[in-house]
Structure formats: structure tokens, C-alpha cells
């Protein structure tokens, strides 16, 4: 028997995969596009490049659990478009990119995800998370499993002011509420994935 039931990849175009935060994003004014079978919040009305902090729903990022790919604990490796995050000495969580191997276990829907970015990103996260994210302790490419808003989660420091948070799919509505509550007083607002893509493209160009 197949393990395809674990995967959000549907057999036809009718079945659109949806993030558990889709309604929250919609209520916040998101515009959606279907990409790779997912209904994705690509932009928000009135979204500008100027921001103190923003959060973007990236739950559609594929995630795999792979065996035989450990590494230094606490450090995420960038391989292509993916983050390889060691869970144990011989087990890793791969986030994004293409399927890493035929034996990889698709755990995409185990984790919803938010990217938090902007100059106030670290301060925003400090409002609900006790992980030590000071630059000297969590430089870019750091990987931190731990408690996020009192829920089990994981965090990848993607860049100096950009963090990828992963948490249980079922807790996504709660997590969106917590992040919005923390970010809004700091001038934060939700962002679409076009914002992320623009930033990443700039980073690639700079690199």
C-alpha cells in the first residue's frame, strides 16, 4: 500500500490544497493564486515594501523527513531552495525545494509555517517565544526546535531579519492570532509570498 495519503499532492486539479491560515489571511485582505496545487496568499491590499515587521503564510512549503541526513544540530543547511534541518544525527527535516529522495516521508501538513520578516521581526518573536534569537546566539542558518507560543515548534533563521516558524497544522489559527497580536502594535501587517520571493530574489542577486 502506498503512503501517498500522507502527501498533499492531489490526483487532479480540482482538489486544491489549503493552508490552515487561509481564512485568517483572507480576512486580512489577502489575494490568492493557485500555485502547484495550493491556494496561496500572494499579496495583500495596500502592501508596501516599507515595513517594521510582516508575517507571511508559507504553509505550502513542502516538508520531508529524510533518513541518513543529519548534521550539526542547531544549524540548517541551505541546499538549493531547501533548508535541511538536522533533527538527529541521521534524520533531518527538509523544508522547501523538490522531493529530496524517493524514501523521504512527506510531512508537509504536519507543520504550518509563517515567515516573519523585517527590522522588528526579532522583537516580535520575543513577544511570544523564549528562544534566544540574539544575533550572536542565533545567526542566519540557525535552526531552533523549541516552544513557540507555548506550542512545540521549530524556527529557522533565514536571514538577519527573517525567520521561518514551523508549528503544528492544527494550531495554525492560534499561531496566526498570536503573531498578529504581537506584530500589530509594532507596526506589523501580513505579507504575501510575493514579498518573500522579491526579497529572496534580491538576496540571490546580491549573492
Amino acid at each position, binding site marked *: *500500500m*502506498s*503512503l*501517498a*495519503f*500522507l*502527501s*498533499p*499532492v*492531489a*490526483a*487532479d486539479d*480540482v*482538489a*486544491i*490544497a*489549503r*493552508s*490552515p491560515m487561509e*481564512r485568517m489571511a483572507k480576512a486580512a485582505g489577502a489575494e490568492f493564486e493557485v500555485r502547484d496545487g*495550493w491556494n496561496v496568499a500572494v499579496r495583500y491590499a495596500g502592501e508596501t515594501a516599507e515595513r517594521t515587521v510582516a508575517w507571511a503564510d508559507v*504553509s505550502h512549503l513542502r516538508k520531508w*523527513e529524510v*533518513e541518513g541526513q543529519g548534521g550539526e544540530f542547531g544549524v540548517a543547511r541551505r541546499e538549493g531552495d531547501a533548508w535541511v534541518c538536522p533533527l538527529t544525527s541521521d*534524520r533531518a527535516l527538509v523544508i522547501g525545494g523538490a522531493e529530496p529522495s524517493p524514501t523521504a*516521508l512527506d*510531512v*508537509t*501538513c*504536519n*507543520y504550518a509555517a509563517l515567515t516573519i520578516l523585517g527590522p522588528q521581526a526579532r*522583537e516580535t518573536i*520575543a*513577544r*511570544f*517565544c*523564549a*528562544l*534566544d*534569537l*540574539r544575533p*550572536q*546566539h542565533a545567526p542566519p542558518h540557525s535552526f531552533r526546535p523549541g516552544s513557540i*507560543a*507555548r*506550542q512545540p515548534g521549530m524556527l529557522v533563521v533565514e536571514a538577519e531579519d527573517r525567520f521561518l516558524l514551523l508549528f*503544528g*497544522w*492544527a*494550531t*495554525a*489559527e*492560534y499561531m496566526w*492570532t*498570536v503573531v498578529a*497580536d504581537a506584530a500589530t*502594535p509594532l507596526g506589523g501587517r501580513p505579507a504575501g509570498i510575493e514579498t518573500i520571493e522579491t526579497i529572496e530574489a534580491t538576496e540571490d542577486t546580491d549573492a
Partner: protein
Amino acid sequence: MSRLPPQPGERIDRQSVLRFTFDGKPVEAFEGDTIGSALFAAGRRTFSRSFKYHRRRGLLCCAGQCPNCIVAVDGAPGVRACVEPVKEGMRVEHLNAQPGLELDVMRATDLVGTRFTPPGFYYKTFIRPRRLWPLYEKVLRHAAGLGVLRKEQADREWRTEYRRRHADVLVVGGGIAGVAAAKQAAAQGADVVLVDEGQVEPVPGVEALGRATALGYFDGMVPVWQGDTLHQIRAPAHVFATGAIEQPLVFAGNDLPGVMLSGGALRLLERYAVSPGTRAVVVSTNDRGLEAAARLHDAGVTIAAVADLRASATEATRALQTRGIAVLQNHTIVAAEGGKQVTRATLGGVEGGNGAAVGGNRAAGAGGNGAGAAAGAEVSFECDLVVVSGGFAPATSLLSQAGARTAYDEARGHFVLADLPPNVFAAGEVAGHADPDAAARSGERAGRQAAGGSPEDAADQPIEQAPTAVPPPVAGQTHGKCFACLCEDVTAKDIKLSIDEGYDSIELSKRYTTVTMGPCQGRMCQLASIRLMAQETGQSLQTVGTTTARPPYISVPMGALAGRPFQPAKRSAIHDRHRELGANIKWAGDWRRAYDYGDPQQEALAVHEAAGLIDVSTLGKLLVRGSEAGEFLDRLYPNRFSDLKPGRIRYGVISSDAGRIVDDGTICRIDEDTYYVTTTSSGAGAVEEWFSWWLADWQMDVRLTDFTQGLAAVNLAGPKAREILGALTDLDCSAEAFKYLDAKHATVAGVPCLILRIGFVGEVGYEIHFAAAHGEHVWDALMQAGREHGIRPFGLEPQRILRLQKMHILVGQDTDSESTPFSAAMPWIVKLDKDADFIGRWALEHYAQEEPAARLVGFTLGDGYVPTEGAVIIDALGAPAGQVTSARFSPVLDRVIGMAWVPAPLARDGATVAISDQGRTVSAHIQTRPFYDPEGEVLRS
């Protein structure tokens, strides 16, 4: 008005006038004033009424330590006026006095009720008749307390920010030592946070949090309350430069408005240019009190008298003498008198000096707690200000919480630090370095060490200060109340009474009298109460010891500790569909679940008559993979799984080492090396932990992945279920091709699914598991396909009716920590002939050989009464013999059914038991087989 001409270093801006109201009357203040300084400058002397006796209380410490000036600001109680800055338009009101602060009817408690209100009087007086306690409680709560909460919920809500901050070094205390420590640690390259209750000057490279109070120490985490933000600061090293707290003296009338600590008087004078009085009597045990007298004199306050408990003059004495002020050595205060405020102070001579009893006939205590007898003539002085200084006790509360030990210092008359835990440092006056230069050096040293540097130099020995006299536990005595604890109105006499009644340790006395339990948290009263305890019991102060310093250090609104108002609820991927369908959504463990959609009975009937669809995404779902996966499960469950064929399902009960049921669920073998395990919704986390724990121990070739949140699951059940499912999949759903307890992989509405043919609700059923991202799509497709067949969504409540009809247990509801598979009527699940050892085997072998005392059975009731879950099964003698675990009205059976634990001899078909429930007794008939489809023909069809 008592505002003085500009004073050097004053903190007010005389060009900026602010206006606020106190009890509705307008008050003017300068920018920089506190509520306390502004009110005092405006002539107010009574700021509050005391907790129990409703005595007048005025400014005492002007440092936010004591309870005397607690007011309500804009409706929020518990604000200390002496440190709260005035803001334009603020509304300040007194607390705890009716009808007003100047005339308080509850003062009668003080005037005529004292003898009826000793410590613990409420425990003794109001216990009978018990039915009146609610009335007593209401009256007592009204009479005591420190204000009332705002009435409207909206007014009670405010936003608190919670900020987690990691630092390399946290310095608590922004005085000379604290700032020096912070600077030094930062210079070493450390990330430093400095907090202080007052204003803090910026320190380069240091995050300085002013008007911020460290509330406690929790294994390295220090919560710091700053306005509307609660910082949670975690640091591997801490420097506490918390200073020392000036202690009041215990004498008759020591709580009158106008009796003020020397530091309080100076703060009023120097920071706010407010004269604390016009004619002062100064009483001290140390030089600082004498220096305050000189400063007051220089500011124009007439010094009527100065009493120094010490026998010998010091430089400070001579400084006063040069001003023409005589100092009465070997004297202290024995009484203060007055009405609205102090008008007279009486001083008395001391025999033996340096810590003797004074002015009366009280015998002195032992153990360095003063010795000597009554002596000396008493002399009175008219005054409107009594400045007292009873010495300075190191503020060790936070250090004690961090694990520091203290010991009583006979010479200084207070407890000092004896040792410190690793990575906790003390600097400045709390460590005995009161001298500014020594404080700075101790701060630098502590900062260097906290940042990981070496001490480099030897620690200064605490500089020998001018000698300090140890005040007597109580001076004067026989008339008037001598307060040891101003917060809780505990007198010296009360402490003695508590000892007489057997509460003869400081911790017991604390609980009985509530001394040290008020807003000052013992800062003003702990030492006094210890001295009294020592005197009355004849113990040394070291033996008496201190009370436990507990957080919070200051009063904090409960809301600030509560966190942001968000509950980490889990919601299934189909949750919004349930909302749209009008589901009655309730908590089920940490999930939000649809209990019903308005009519649970009809929803249950729909499952029998057509089809029902329920969201069961909350089930625990574990993928167990590896060459030893089967053996792993064989070790965890009492039955076998290594012989389960791929594509088949088997029920499993997890038992503990003691053979007790801890969870249940189904196990499906996907392929040779892969099993899909479901657990109960509430047990998912615990089972995952249990599996992980054993896997770590056994080191088997097994991988465990939790898909509880990643997979949605629905149960499609009912006579029409096969047709509905068939419309959405290419799978052959016929009974022959897809048998009961088969598992198949197929697409449903285009989504890859694992379909389990199981029947928790007793009808033909398919449990469909798929990626959560498709939750709504699959739900919608099934509902759409089922519409023509009369499908209904059903919730948790109808599911409970349906499963009860089949006598399927709910672990945790029908079972408890004593339930075994044998007593729960599932002996067939235990395979004692299994070769492999398994968890609980030894215990289950034992249970297999003995008759359980009680068994889980079904029962029916004829009269329509549905007993409460938990109702008692009673035996022939009326004694409790068991309990009802589940009961419902079954619409399809048209009768009440249930499950219960009954004595084993009664666990047989046809037996009757009596159920006692809410004042009535009903007779129930025992049934040991399922109420619905006992042979399982429907299920397997």
C-alpha cells in the same frame, strides 16, 4: 503648602503645571512630581486607611516600599502614590475608607473593637452558624482589602506586552554598584540588561530599564515589570545590587501620619522640594538618621530633638552639634501621639546603650536582641514630624530566591548574605558595601565576574560603618498600638498572642497573623517580627530565622501575570465547515470539536437510517516504520501485530506496566515494514511519548513519525456509506472486495486517502485519512455525494450515543487507572501465549488468574431516566459498590442505556442493580453484550 524654594537636584519642573483630582478635588502638581509629593505639598497628610483598624496612614518611605500611600488611579487600585508620577487629568481616589478618608466609620474597629479582633478572629468568630459564612465573608471582604476591582469588565482589561529577553548578564539595581557592574560587564563584551525601580541613566552598551521592578527569580529567569510590559529576562549570570531598606521602629503610635523614615523625608525634600514638616523629632540608630536631621535643619525644618540609640557620638553627631542641635545619646522614641497627624513625640533613655530595651518595664530578649532594663526619664516634644531610622536591612529577597543564604549579624542587627550560589553576585549595600567608593568597586568586581572575567582583585571587606545600634523589638509599650506590620495591622501584641496560641515559629506566626504577607512583602516588617519572635521565645534571631522570600517582589496586577488572552487550541482542517454548519463547538482536550449540529438524537438516527459524517481528525496518528516495527508493537500491546497481514486492521489496547488500560485504537499494517497506529484523541500525545520513550530504550530499527495534526480524518458511516464512498472513488467498495477491518489506499474526490473499514459507531463505516490540506475538499465532496442519500454531519455527542450502543469503551471515561482488559470485559485482547514479552505481561498474567472485584458491563433503564455519569451503584445494603461511567438515551433502541462498573457477581445478563443518583434510586438491568447489533452482522455487512 509645604513646597520649598528650589532645591539642588530637584526632579520637578516648576514651569510645567499638571492638574489631577484626588477624591474629586483638584490638585496641582509640577511635572516630575509623584502623586504623593503633590498631595503632600498640597497639605494632605492622610493618604490611606489601614487594612484592619482603619487608622490614618501617611507617607512613610516615599520609595514604594510601604503600604501607606496606596491609592486607586483612574479606577485601578493598588497604586503607590509616592512613586507614581502625576499625569495630567489623572483621577486619584483613596481606598478602604467609608464614607471618606477623613471620616471612616470602620475606625470603630480600632477604637472599640480591638479586643474582639485579635489575629485569626475571623477563624474563631465566624465559623458558626456555617450557613451564615457567605454573609460574614461579604462583610469582611467589604471591610478589609485594598480597594475594589473596576466594575465593568471593559475597564478591567488592558494590554500587557510580554517580552522575552536573553542577556549575558542581568543587573538588578541601578544605584552606584549596579551601574558600575553593568558598565564593567558591558566593557567585558557581555550583553547586559540593567533594571531599576527608579529612573536609570543610559549606560553605553547596556539596555537600561527604568521604573522597572524585578519581581522574582525563577531558575535564572527574572520577570521584570515595567509599566505595561512584563520582561522575562533570562541570563546565565546575575548581579544583584538591590541596596538596603530602611527599617522603621516599633513604638506606640508608630503609624501616625507624620512619622516618616529618614529616607522618605529626604526624598520629599530633595527630589520634590517639599518640606516633610515644620518641627521635627529625629530618632535614629545610625548616622544616616542624624545626617537627615542636619539636612532637614538646613532646609528650614526646626529640629525639636534628636535621639540616638547609640551611646557614643560620631561625626554626624558633631555635625548636628555645630548647628546647635543637641543629640540625646542612649535615647529612642517610646511613643508618638496625635489625631490627624503626629503632634507629640516622647523619647526615653536606654540602659546599656547599643541595643537595650528602653523607656518602660519590658524585659529584654536574648540572643543579641538587646539587653537591659527600663531606664531613663521620658521627655516629650511637640512636633508635626517624627523622622525615624531603624537601620538598613539588605534587600536580599531576590538573592534568597536565587539560592543565597543569609545569617544574622549581631553587630549590625540584621541578616546579611552568608553565601551565594554560582553565577549569582551581590554588589553594593546589599553585600555590605554602603560606602559609595566601596559600592562602586564591588559593582565593578561583580560585573567583571558575571561577564566571565576573573575577580582580579580581592573583594573589599565591608567597610566598617559608624556603629549602628540594634533597636529593641518594641520601645515603650503599655499603651497604644505598636505596629510591627503596617500592611496587615499586626501589632507587637499580636505576635506575642500568636506565640501564646502555639504559633511559635516565624513561619507559623506569619501564617496566623499575616505579618509580612501584605503589599510590602516583609520589607518593612520582617526584621521587626523576627525581633519580636526572638524576644518572646527567648531564641536568637539566627535561630528564629527569616520567612521565605517569595515572588512577586511588589504587587502586580493578576492580569500582568496571566499572559495574552489566547488559548492554544487545536482545530481540525475541517473546523470552519463545522462553524458554517452551526455546530455546537466545545473543548475536547486541547481540541475544539463539534459536539453536535443542533440535534444529536436525529444525527445518531441518520447514521442508522442513511449516513453520517463525522470529523475524527483529532485521533492520534502515528506512522511506525522499520524492519522491527511489528516486533516493536508486539512489545507495546498485549496482542500481536507482527502477524497482521498488510492491508488489515486490528484493534489494540495499550496497557501500562501494571496491566492497566491507558489507551486504545486501531493498528493498520500498510506494508511489511510500515504500520499506521491510531490512538484516542486525548491520548495522542501521551502515546507518542510512550512509544518514543520505549523506542529510545529498546534501540530497535523503528522510525516513529507523528501525523496527528498532519492528517485529517473523517468517518463515513451508515447503510448508505458504501454508495456515497463509491461515487467518489474507483475503489471496489463491495462487502466482498472491501471487508470489515480491511485497509485500502485510494483516491477520494481526487485526494489520496487511506481508507479503514472499521465501525466505532456500529454501522458500515469507512474511516478516511488524508493530508490535512485537503480537509475541506474531501468533507465537501462526501457531503455533496451523500446529499441524495440523506447524509448528515454528526458530532461528538451522537457518536457517543452510537458507540455506547455497541459498548465500545471510551478510555478515560469508562475506564480508570485501575481498569484492566480483564475487568473491562476484553480478555480476548490479551495474548498471554505470545512468545514476545510485552509491557504489562507480568501483571496481566496475574489478573488473568483472579476474579476482578468489579466488571464493566452495560445496563438498561426502563423509565427514561438518564443517570448522571458518575452515579453510584449501590449494593443490597445501600453501600456504594460501583459507578455509572456512561449513560444516554438511545433513539434507535428507544430506551436508556449505559455502562457501569458493578460487583463481579452481578456482572451477568439479567441481573439488576440499583443506581443512586441525585436523590433518587433506580433499578437497572445488566447486559453484557452490545445493545445494538450484538453479533456484528450490520458492521460486517
